[in-house]
């Protein structure tokens, strides 16, 4: 043993003064499936943390081998005792075990050390990089900011996905639901949004939090690796409550995530939080509620399932300047079954959020990715945060695509079409191609503006539909190489003035001359 360790031991022994404080205790009377019934604990608080005394009757050596303290969370206060969820391995709890009251409500560590780390639902690091040195403890349950402390959404949060930034814009402080069947690219949209934040200047770049609820560990590991490869992990915190975690931790994880985010929001910074996904959280909460013997309601969910999601999502906010001007933007994800958005949980979350991005399996299978149905997707507050440049190029886009979808359906029955209709269909087809985007390749907003400007000025009309993606990619590279000043100007000003439009027209002409082989449609 080295001398520093000996010194530490001596210091600890010298500092140690035994206390004779009485602790309120109870006794476990029943254990089952992550929920315990406790007798006693007369002064227990709702959502209080309790500690299970696992060392009673065990020898010192065995007690030292115990894998950390075991805690529980009080969820029901009853006439003759309390019921609590075990925040760990239920197998360690036995009947008759003493339970100590801590007098504390659940808190998780947050602070400057957290970005770049992977933590569990209780904020404990699970990435093997060691404990946090000086974290700020944030309450997991906290009342959301009130009306006076808030201001309306005015700053855009760029997702880097053309169809979203153009037609369903998201503002900082907004809650935008991502909804769709399994395997339609919901997580991809969220992760691309996180990756795209690397294009933001460091001083305005949001801290990103990805909360994985009930996901496979392999999926979360893949996401962490992707974020690392894309240099996005340095500003991202991953809160992991995998499918193997107790239901209590799965239902707590989103609250822990937002509590971590509130530290940054309170210090005046912007936060982006992704809840992947709230359907699984609802299922975990239903499991806990049924075990707690709370009366089941529709689809066996408890009566307060709406409140569970509303109190979580209300914590997303844009604060007033007096409160520091920070924000939390929430991107909750909901998984639907067979495209049914009228289910209990989907309708609840749709009504709570400020808009939805619907992802459709049919579009996904047709190769249109991201598979966003722009017809039913909406952003209720984001347009006020959209830059003028984007507004000017994306104004008629949604309508054009909606008309194209109508005509596309009609086209299947009509044998010959008039020229105007045929032109509209051709233009729509190309627009759909322009809006396609590979995963993991978010585009900076200035480039989106340039591409959409070109698309809305019939630039791709002479390109065969199959080659539009290639033409767009080359045009994007050409702008980077030859017209980076124009892009920088759009980025800086956020506007598309006449001079910039002229420059873009010039760039389009030059590109067309240089790549004539692409423009062979007619």
């Amino acid at each position, binding site marked *: 043993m080295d001398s520093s360790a000996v010194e*530490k*031991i001596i210091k*600890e*022994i010298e500092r*140690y003064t*035994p206390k*004779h*404080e*009485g*602790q*309120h*205790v*109870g*006794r476990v009377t029943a254990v089952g499936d992550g929920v315990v019934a406790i*007798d*006693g*604990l*007369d*002064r227990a608080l709702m959502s209080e943390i309790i500690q299970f005394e696992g*060392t*009673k*009757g*065990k*020898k*010192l050596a065995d*007690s*030292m081998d115990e894998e950390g303290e075991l805690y529980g969370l009080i969820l029901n206060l009853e*006439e*003759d005792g309390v019921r609590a969820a075990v925040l760990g391995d239920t197998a360690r709890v036995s009947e008759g075990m*003493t339970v*100590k009251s801590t007098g504390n409500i659940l808190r998780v560590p947050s602070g400057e050390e957290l970005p770049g780390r992977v933590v569990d639902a209780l904020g404990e690091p699970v990435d093997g990089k060691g*404990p946090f040195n000086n974290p700020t403890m944030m309450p997991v349950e906290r009342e959301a900011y009130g009306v006076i402390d808030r201001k309306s959404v005015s700053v855009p949060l760029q997702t880097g996905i053309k169809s979203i930034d153009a037609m369903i814009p998201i503002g900082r402080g907004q809650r935008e639901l991502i909804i769709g069947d399994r395997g339609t690219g919901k997580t991809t949209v969220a992760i691309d949004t996180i990756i795209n934040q690397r294009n933001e200047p460091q001083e305005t770049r949001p801290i990103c939090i990805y909360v994985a609820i009930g996901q496979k560990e392999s999926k979360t590991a893949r996401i962490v690796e992707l974020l690392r490869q894309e240099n996005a992990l340095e500003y991202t915190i991953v809160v992991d409550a995998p499918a193997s975690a107790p239901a209590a931790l799965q239902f707590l994880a989103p609250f822990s995530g937002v509590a971590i985010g509130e530290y940054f929001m309170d210090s005046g910074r912007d936060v982006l939080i992704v809840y992947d996904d709230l359907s699984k959280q609802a299922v975990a909460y239903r499991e806990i509620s049924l075990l707690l013997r709370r009366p089941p309601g529709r689809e066996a969910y408890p009566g307060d399932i709406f409140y569970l999601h509303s109190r979580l999502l209300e914590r997303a906010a844009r604060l007033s300047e007096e409160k520091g001007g920070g924000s939390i933007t929430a991107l909750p994800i909901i998984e639907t079954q067979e495209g049914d958005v009228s289910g209990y949980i989907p309708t609840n979350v749709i009504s709570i959020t400020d808009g939805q991005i619907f992802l459709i399996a049919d579009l996904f299978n047709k190769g249109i990715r991201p598979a966003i149905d722009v017809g039913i997707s909406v952003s209720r507050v984001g347009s006020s945060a959209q830059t003028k440049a984007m507004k000017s190029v994306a104004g008629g886009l949604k309508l054009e695509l909606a008309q194209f979808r109508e005509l596309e359906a009609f086209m299947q029955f009509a044998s010959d079409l008039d020229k105007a209709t045929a032109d509209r269909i051709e233009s729509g087809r190309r627009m759909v191609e322009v809006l396609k985007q590979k995963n993991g390749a978010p585009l900076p907003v200035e480039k989106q503006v340039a591409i959409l400007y070109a698309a809305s000025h019939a630039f791709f009309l002479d390109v065969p539909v199959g080659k539009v993606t290639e033409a767009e990619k080359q045009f994007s590279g050409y702008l980077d190489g030859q017209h980076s000043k124009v892009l920088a100007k759009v980025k800086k000003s956020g506007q598309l003035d006449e001079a910039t439009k002229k420059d873009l027209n010039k760039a389009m002409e030059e590109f067309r001359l240089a790549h004539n082989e692409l423009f062979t449609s007619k």
Partner: protein
Amino acid sequence: MENSYAQALWRMLEGGTPPLKAVSALREALVRCGREALLPRIARAFERIQEREARANDVILSVASEKDERKARASVKDVLKQLRIESRITKTRVDETMIGGWRLEGQGLLVDNSYKKHLLHLYSSITK
């Protein structure tokens, strides 16, 4: 459901109703509702309440060995006063795993002054 009936019965008795009267009133109520079959379960639930109440009034002193008892009893006198536990120690237990010291548990409170607890506390703060 049996718990609710048992609690009601307990309260009646606490309120001063004579036991026979309380039980016959309960029985009549159960017959009226057609729930007479619940009686044995109510009896078991009532026993549980009784045990719980008895336990709540117990004050248990645990020591590592019998020879520590006298010293421990003297030590806990002040602690009992501090915690405003008025009743006396009702049970004494020997728990060798405590190594030394004492542990007082009763009326919903716990004061653990065992050597094992202190050693574990030191161990966790040193290895943290």
